[in-house]
């Protein structure tokens, strides 16, 4: 067991995603209570008090983001649930959408109430079909039951929700880029300032939160900030959904209480490395810790993993992060050069092309690693990769460029010998093996 549960506190059945089942679990009670007894600002205060951090990758305090919005300023505000889950290795939001979509919807209603939002959106990645169907059905159920629309549950609060399906662009997971997508333009990330809570969707104050972050809110309102604080660690309260994949015996989505032992999680809860092979490395939080942060993404070697607990502050001090909660386990015998090739190909493919360093740098790095893998590597290539990666770091509009850079620098820092071997011998130290 991976500690106390907040989102996975029910048994999955054929109907557990339905409104009836959700209500039987106490669903929508927090909404009814809040509408009856709380002012919008009190809801926000509860979230501030809970210490909830964003679960999309940046781990920014959710309450503090919300405080950027004045619910009574008389202008339209928007809330967007970011379900554009495209970070390789990450599939946790999909779990929420498929198995308990009403948790998200109730949480969004509470959030909209707190933020003075009349129209909210779920931006769900274009490829997700079953998760979308489940979500869409839940939305219709919620509308039919009067949870959305005019004068919800007899209150003054009215709210509409639009499920916006993406169309295949990783960069839309970046919150400001997703705004462009909803506005019907190319999804280019936007420069800050202005912050989105100042000028976001349709130029109005906007909050974009990750699905998992938002979904936690119903629980916090139902049980109180204090109860939430009791879960997890002092600085990282609550739980995280960890989606684990790669060379692991039992891949899947796990809810892990923050502060839980990593070694225990890997070796006991997830059954250890596939086929009992030795552990080589772990990518802890999505290959780029989601587009937003990048900086925190780092490959951890087997030795580094053993003593760590799963929480934001420990991982940050280890030079990495929980990021998007997309953990990829890599067994000994895997060719890290080929793995980096896949990552760099991905960033090159997904670069939106707007700003110079990422547009040119991701392609440049991709072509260099392709050449190395083709057996045509040159001695200066590694230095060059580090140079390109270094100037993708912090120079771009969004984190995609950073992330591409970190992927390269982290791999080169930890597994430089493999790259040198590949260049010198024109072949992989591990026969190009990925499996």
């Amino acid at each position: 067991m991976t500690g106390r549960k907040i989102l996975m506190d029910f048994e999955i059945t054929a109907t557990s995603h339905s409104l009836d089942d959700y209500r039987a679990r106490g669903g929508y009670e927090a909404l009814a209570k809040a509408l009856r007894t709380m002012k919008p600002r009190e809801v926000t205060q509860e979230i501030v008090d809970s210490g909830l951090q964003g679960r999309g990758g940046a781990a920014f305090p959710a309450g503090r983001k919300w405080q950027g919005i004045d619910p009574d300023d008389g202008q339209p505000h928007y809330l967007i649930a970011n379900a554009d889950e495209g970070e390789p290795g990450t599939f946790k939001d999909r779990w929420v959408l498929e198995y308990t979509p009403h948790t998200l919807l109730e949480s969004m209603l509470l959030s909209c109430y707190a933020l003075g939002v009349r129209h909210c959106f779920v931006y769900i990645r274009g490829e997700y079909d079953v998760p979308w169907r489940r979500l869409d059905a839940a939305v219709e159920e919620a509308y039919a039951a009067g949870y959305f629309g005019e004068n919800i549950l007899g209150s003054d609060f009215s709210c509409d929700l639009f499920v916006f399906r993406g169309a295949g662009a990783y960069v839309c997971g970046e919150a400001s880029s997703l705004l462009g997508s909803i506005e019907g333009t190319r999804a280019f990330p936007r420069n800050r300032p202005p912050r989105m809570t100042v000028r976001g969707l349709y130029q109005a104050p906007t909050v974009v939160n990750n699905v998992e972050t938002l979904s936690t809110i119903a629980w916090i309102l139902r049980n109180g900030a204090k109860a939430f604080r009791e879960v997890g660690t002092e600085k990282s309260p609550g739980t995280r959904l960890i989606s684990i994949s790669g060379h692991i015996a039992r891949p899947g989505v796990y809810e892990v209480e923050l502060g839980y032992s990593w070694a225990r999680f890997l070796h006991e809860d997830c059954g250890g490395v596939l086929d009992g092979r030795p552990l080589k490395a772990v990518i802890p939080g999505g290959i780029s810790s989601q587009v937003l942060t990048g900086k925190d993404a780092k490959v951890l070697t087997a030795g580094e993993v053993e003593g760590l607990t799963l929480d934001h502050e420990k991982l940050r001090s280890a030079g990495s992060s929980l990021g998007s909660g997309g953990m990829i386990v890599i067994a000994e015998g895997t060719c890290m050069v080929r793995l980096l090739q896949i990552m760099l190909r991905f960033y090159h493919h997904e670069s939106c092309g707007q700003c110079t360093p990422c547009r040119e740098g991701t392609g440049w790095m991709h072509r260099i690693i392709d050449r190395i893998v083709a057996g045509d590597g040159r001695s200066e290539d590694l230095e060059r990769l580090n140079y390109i990666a270094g100037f993708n770091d912090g120079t771009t509009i969004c984190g995609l460029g950073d992330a591409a850079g970190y992927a390269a620098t982290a791999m080169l820092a930890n597994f430089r010998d493999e790259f040198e071997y590949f260049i010198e011998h024109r072949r992989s130290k591990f026969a190009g093996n990925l499996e």
Partner: protein
Amino acid sequence: MTAIFINGQPVETGEHTTVLQVALANGFYIPHFCWHPELSIVGNCRVCVVEQEGRGVGIACNMPISDGMRVLTDSEPVRAQRKAMLQFILLNHPVDCGICDKAGECALQDYHYAYNGEPALSSDPKLHSTKFFPLSERIILDNERCILCSRCVRFTREVSKSNVLGLEHRGDHMLVRPAEGRTLDDDPYSDNVIDICPVGALLSRSFLYQSRVWYLEPTPSVCPGCARGCTVQLWHRKPEWRLKGLDERHNTRIQRVTPLENPRVNGPWICNKGRDLPTLLDRPRAEQALLKGAPVAMTQAIEAGRTLLDQAGKRVALVSSWGSNEELRAFRNSLGDYFSCFVKADHQPAEGEVVEDDLLIRADKNPNTRAGQDLFGTAAAAIPEDTDLVLVWGEGVDFGTLPRGVKILFLGSWLLPENGHADVFIPISIQTERRGHYTNFEGVVSAFEPCQPRRDGVIDAETLFPLLSAPGGSASGGGAA
């Protein structure tokens, strides 16, 4: 008053809101590709980086001013990042300056020498893309040279509003493209994208391979195409680069026209008609004075003109709306008392031409109607049947509409059939041969300078008018200089 420190020096920010604007306004140059004062901020080139002390390196175009902030435009981290950005930009750029029209006035070329100066870091093959993509009859696009700054796209979206251009695809295969089925021929302001392109990606087809820009120099002038009176630069060969094999006229030919930035009139833009001034100004010229179609010396023609004036009882003048402020005043001073004067429209909107819009183009296709009307009133021309003499100054009058038997004194610049039908025809100079001013429809006065020698056999109107009015005296000395 907000003040910030740039490189340790205090500067006042004035009306400006970003570090880039303040720096440029105070003489601290920060290189930039995508930023343009008339376009939205996109911050995509990442070259305009500065270091804000204590906050690290960031782009100046989107860095808001805060009182007392300290900014460095040339610190080591700034230099390193600028250099890296130029390496990135040049990665797939063909560096074909040797055959690129933009060379010599290319921001990329200038910045390379100023801020990078090192050979490419990559020796791998460059990505190839479309060359010579026609955007219109007037403009070609070289996608290999394009650095995707999106200035041209934003221009068609935000300024000309033709919405012709966009960015298609993504990543390093993103391309500037026109909407399918459309071209920049739909945009009467399209050629401005050539000017604002910081590199050699957008090129004028009429200027393509015509001249190296460093052989040219601009003369400030005013576009006579409409009553807006946009200030322009007429580019022609520098005297020191004169080609010995060509005559004076060819050596002083106007090779291209660009806007002369002018916040009171046209900002940094002009319309395509302004770009086509050479076509208007290169029309065959009248260089021979005529009496009823027969060639005569200029002195003889002036004498004949004065005689017509003396002998006529009822005289009407149709004054040119292409005359300069100086010429119009000279006309009034010398001849105003002799004539009932009316300002006429020398040019009417041509077929297919944009008549009027809300950016620059005015329905009055003449540059100086305003100054003429200030002197001679706004009444429409009325020529009584018993008029003895009509003085026609400039184009636009159909002699067939004049009263039968009236004497015609015609002052014109172009080789036209009417010249021979006038009783006296005197050829006069054009705008590029003399100095002067136009007053635009809003009353803004702009100056133009000569850049071509006055043709033989042609007289300046300003010189001519006093000679025509001189009582009984000789007209000698009024000929072409």
